[in-house]
């Protein structure tokens, strides 16, 4: 199905309900779908499980969702930062659950969900605190941990350009988690600078095929 072209960020996230699991793209500010996160803040959905590399920074975006206690659980690799004060406070108060995952396992678990893989043995984390309680196995003399897919209800991601079929291209290191998150969510909601007609993206250079994209909103951009 060609994606729905939403009229605004608010319109794009309107279906996100309480209790949803939401993948949020971005690494630092690059690829962070700021307008979609703000719209998620506005729409009022709560009791969310959020998957992101970090746990919010300063007084914006994901950090505000956490400040307002809308996130019951976060799955991420790097929550603690110099400006992660809202997460730090919620965590210390026992008001947010943290599942800490090594970054590569996080990425591979998201990919596994999109690729229909039931679980995989990864060497990352073997012998560490983050493998505690997980199944492990030694294969050809090397230790591995069994990791499971991270499926989600929604993905909020940022790309550079979409065509009307939902095909996406990204920009530089803003690509990061976008392509795999689009595959792992029941509904992928994408903010882009611009939507172009199908046929205007070179099929060789499409990074996310439109099959993964459900909703697109064009927000302009200064690039």
């Amino acid at each position, binding site marked *: *199905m*060609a994606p729905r072209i939403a009229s605004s960020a608010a319109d794009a996230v309107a279906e996100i309900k309480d209790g949803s699991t939401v993948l949020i793209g971005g690494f630092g500010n690059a690829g962070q779908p700021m307008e979609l996160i703000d719209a998620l803040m506005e729409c009022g959905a709560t009791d969310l499980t959020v998957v992101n590399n970090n746990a919010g920074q300063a007084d914006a975006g994901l950090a505000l969702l956490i400040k307002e206690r809308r996130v019951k659980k976060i799955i991420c690799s790097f929550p603690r930062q110099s400006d992660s004060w809202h997460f730090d406070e919620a965590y210390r108060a026992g008001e947010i659950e943290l599942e800490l995952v090594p970054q590569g396992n996080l990425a591979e678990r998201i*990919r596994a*969900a*999109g*690729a*229909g*893989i039931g679980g995989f043995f990864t060497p990352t984390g073997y012998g560490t605190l983050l493998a505690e309680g997980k199944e492990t196995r030694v294969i050809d003399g090397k230790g591995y941990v069994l990791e499971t897919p991270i499926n989600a209800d929604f993905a909020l991601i940022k790309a550079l350009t979409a*065509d*009307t*079929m939902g*095909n996406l291209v990204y920009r530089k290191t803003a690509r990061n988690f976008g392509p795999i998150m689009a*595959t792992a969510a029941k509904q992928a909601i994408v903010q882009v600078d611009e939507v172009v*007609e*199908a*046929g205007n*993206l070179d*099929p*060789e250079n*499409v990074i996310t*095929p*439109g*099959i*993964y994209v459900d909703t697109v909103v064009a927000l302009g951009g200064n690039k």
Partner: protein
Amino acid sequence: MSNYSSTQEKLSRDEMAQKVAADIPSGAFVNLGIGQPTNVSNFLTNEQGVTLHTENGMLGMGPVATGEDIDEDLINAGKIPVTELPGASFFHHADSFAMMRGGHLDVCVLGAFQVSEAGDLANWHTGAEGAIPAVGGAMDLAIGAKQTWVMMSLFTKTGESKLVEALSYPVTGLGCVSRIYTEVAIFELRDSKVFVRSAHGISFEELQSKVSVELTKA
């Protein structure tokens, strides 16, 4: 209220393909297996806006290529030269099968040797002595799509039903088939029952007499 219908004549191969095509939801992402299912693409309308996937790494596959459009780098799963439509995309084999296995295709249409009443599919290997097995993407396709539909003749050359209680041929995928299009009937497998949606050139009673599984009018 019954949805069951019947016609006097058996369906031709084109009519079967037409029925399948008409049942594909508009906007669907679809993989058509090699052989008879490929014919379905001839009956899809532009208005349906269906996007075709080919396992060898493409979405937005267009019709078979002819003349100057033939390009040996642009082929379908049957290794036939095809064309690309606006909005197409290319990807590598792991990504292509991730798309399949991850449940992103809406419908996959396959041929079959046998289908069981539980929706088990056999279509890759006769199991015959000395036969060289080959599987290709059959097992991935069978279990990957949201819906797997089968097109086949209902009876073997010796008159045995290919819709069976339990497979006698080697399994391709378990419990994956939800619809079967044959020249004499269209079946829907759901709620642990086999519904007959329509019969063609055969009465429901005669159909039931030739098929060992219990049938229910849809």
